[in-house]
């Protein structure tokens, strides 16, 4: 626990020093906004995990002396997973609550819609779990991201699918959102370029009844199913597919990322053994000291047996903003951006930094626009629930080889 607070104490001390040395006076507490989906049709399971993590970050930062001599106050905004709601919440956080920066964010559509509001009002945002490439690809001054790009996660998905024995045709179920549509297209493109046929089915976020779609997928006779749907909708699809004989026990099946919340997963998908799940971040055995300390507090606080990657990202999004404000010595937006561009933050996910931005355009290194204000090193793995009732942090990592802890079990072999 001592190590966990070490960096916080150091940054708090630096901030306090800057504050006493004559930095402009601050209104205390300093408010930092935090986006999370806490109502349907958003992914409430993910939103609650992120909210809990961001509140732990608030406690840790305040316990270590706060920011610029003030406590911070994390103001939670419920995005409901809806873009129109996200813009309204971002507007409210900035204009009414007076936040100086914003962290969190789960759904890509929320990030895509709300980033323009924040950028126009010159409020820095560090998005935690929004994958859509355009969020950083629009090269906006105040927008940063520590989640992986959608194109990176899609690469891992199709590269893993190519390792499935005898794979010739893959069915992809996606939600018709800013996360699902590009992710499914990139996955399909990667598969098709490698000679594997794919068929995409898209659904509304929050769909409950998949009987008709499941029958249609069955009629396509795929060798693998990939689910790019968030929240309980992915639980519904996976179990209904299992009931119909094309679930994780029947063919190689990648379910939605919310299966990382293993308690909810096993309650809702009792026939979900052998499902593959994409996970951001390294296995728990390779967590940083700060990651281990956070995991212990998070598990104790929530009663969960595992730590979801989006909870760690949410924690880091608040912590990195606190460090940036301290290093900027002010809550002024431009100064925080400069501090973020030059930051080296030891987070729960590893060392977080940003190579490209105002200081250096991605094109100078031949990179695409999406590398703007983008953390380049998030680990992306594929895990498999090889035992019934398993927790996600103890599940086998089956891809890529750099993190592999066990060989995948392919039920069709």
């Amino acid at each position, binding site marked *: 626990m001592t190590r966990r607070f070490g960096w916080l104490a150091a940054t708090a001390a630096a901030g306090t020093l800057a504050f006493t040395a004559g930095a402009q006076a601050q209104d205390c507490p300093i408010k930092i906004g935090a986006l999370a989906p*806490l*109502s*349907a*049709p958003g992914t*409430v*399971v993910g*939103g*609650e995990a992120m909210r809990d993590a961001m509140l732990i970050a608030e406690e840790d930062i305040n316990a270590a002396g706060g920011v610029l001599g003030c406590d911070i106050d994390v103001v939670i905004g419920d995005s409901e997973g809806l873009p129109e709601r996200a813009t309204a919440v971002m507007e409210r956080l900035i204009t009414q609550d007076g936040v100086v920066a914003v962290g969190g964010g789960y759904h890509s559509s929320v990030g895509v819609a709300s980033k323009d509001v924040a950028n126009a009002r010159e409020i820095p945002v560090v998005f935690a779990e929004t994958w859509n490439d355009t969020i950083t690809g629009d090269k906006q001054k105040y927008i940063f991201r520590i989640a992986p790009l959608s194109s990176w996660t899609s690469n891992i998905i199709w590269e893993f699918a190519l390792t499935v024995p005898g794979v010739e045709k893959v069915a992809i179920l996606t939600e*018709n959102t800013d996360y699902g549509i590009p992710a499914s297209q990139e996955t399909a493109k990667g598969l098709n370029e490698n000679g594997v046929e794919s*068929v*995409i*089915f*898209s*659904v*509304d976020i*929050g*769909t*409950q*009844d998949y*009987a*008709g*779609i499941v*029958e*249609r997928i*069955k*009629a*396509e006779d795929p060798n693998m199913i990939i689910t790019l749907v968030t*929240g*309980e909708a992915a*639980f*519904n699809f996976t*179990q*209904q597919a*299992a*009931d*119909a*004989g094309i679930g994780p026990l029947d063919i190689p099946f990648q379910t939605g990322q919310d299966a990382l*919340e293993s*308690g*909810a997963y096993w*309650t*809702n998908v*009792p*026939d979900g053994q052998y499902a593959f799940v994409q996970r951001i971040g390294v296995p728990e055995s390779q967590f940083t000291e700060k990651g281990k300390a956070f995991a212990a507090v998070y598990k104790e606080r929530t009663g969960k047996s595992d730590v979801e990657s989006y909870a760690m990202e949410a924690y880091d999004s608040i912590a990195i903003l606190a460090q940036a404000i301290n290093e900027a010595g002010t809550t002024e937006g431009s100064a925080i951006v400069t501090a973020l561009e030059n930051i080296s933050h030891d987070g729960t996910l590893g060392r977080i930094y940003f190579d490209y931005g105002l200081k250096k355009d991605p094109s100078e290194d031949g990179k695409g626009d999406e590398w703007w204000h983008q953390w380049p090193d998030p680990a992306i793995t594929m895990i498999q629930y090889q035992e019934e009732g398993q927790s996600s942090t103890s599940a086998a990592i089956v891809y890529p080889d750099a993190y592999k802890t066990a060989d995948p079990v392919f039920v069709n072999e």
Partner: protein
Amino acid sequence: MESPTIFWGVIGWMVVWGVLGSILLRQRYLARDLDTSNANFVGAMSGAALGPVGVGLLWATTPKLSGRIIVGFGILAVVLIAAAFSFADPDNVCVSNGSFVASQISNGLIIGIIYGFMALGLTLIFSILGVVSFAHGEFYMIGGMLVYYITAVWLPGVNPLVGVMGACLVAFILGAAFERAMLTPMYKGKVDRPVEYGILATFGLAFTLQYFVQAIHGATPVKAQRFIDFPRIRWPEGADPLWIRTSRGNLTLFDTISISNPRFIAAITCILVLLALLYLLHRTWTGKALRAVSQDRDAAAIAGIDPNRMNMLAFALGGMIAALAGALLVQAFSWLPQVGAIPAMRSFVIVVLGGLGSLPGAFVGGILVGLVEAAGTGCVPDAQKAASYIPAYGMIVLTLTLLLRPTGLFGRRFASGTHGQF
């Protein structure tokens, strides 16, 4: 689609003759001083199904426009669309795969029965109280939530029937208590705008229930275990029968039609409860009293029926029906405090489609919406779009029906704005 011009050409032909038939037949029946209540609808169906032949036949003979004529032309129109689709897209899975079609029809029927059952509760409340209950989705939600808590948390291992009965009982009591406490001012002259008051009161109940459950339970999705597993059927003895094959979660008929266990159990239970409800309404004094109040409140009171008591009974029964639908589906879907929003919206569509206040209309409307959704999901050629449009399929049917028959399929033309009739 290989030949879209064939399909869209036929659809265009049907639309043109449907519109012409609707206009011409209404004018013809008006000119002959005949009942025009079904003229638009039948004219459109006859035009769509048989073009100038159908419209001309009805124009010349001006028969009484009965339900049989409506159904006959309606089926013909659907057959024509299906035939055009088959010619235009012969490789479509809906055309080339009979087993898939059979499965989609059975899926549509089963979910339609469940939709219709839930809408019955809404219709019952509207018929007696003249109020559209906006808390219907929340009764559905608490039904499922109670079954989960009873069978998995409070009394783990208990027979699921106990959970279902418990959920129904709680919903019935809650509905009765709410009606007594909040809705009585409507018909005691204590409020200026009783209908609006009723709607707002049920809105309030909806929010209260949803956020109360969220505060108590949280927003983590839960699910009840399957109520029963299908037994392994071997008949003739020792052999795997061809006509029926079962696994724990699935039933396959004739190696063709696949039905999931939770939906099968839910649909069968809905049919049994529907039969019981019909018995209650048509064979018992209480049911007859309910129907009497729906037809004429004052006359029913003169005959010795207490309309206020019937109001309470109707609201409680309506809420209980929604809760039962939820109690049966919590083994099929993941359950959240917000889970009732989509089914409630669909129930409103079905009730209006079937005709406000009509019990048969609600049930037929539910099955129609279920079948149209299954057809859309299965047959729209672009797989990426087929499932995205699920919410739109029911709305298309509703819009077309209301254009041609504003009272809905089974609605009465002069049903009161305050109280419908069933």
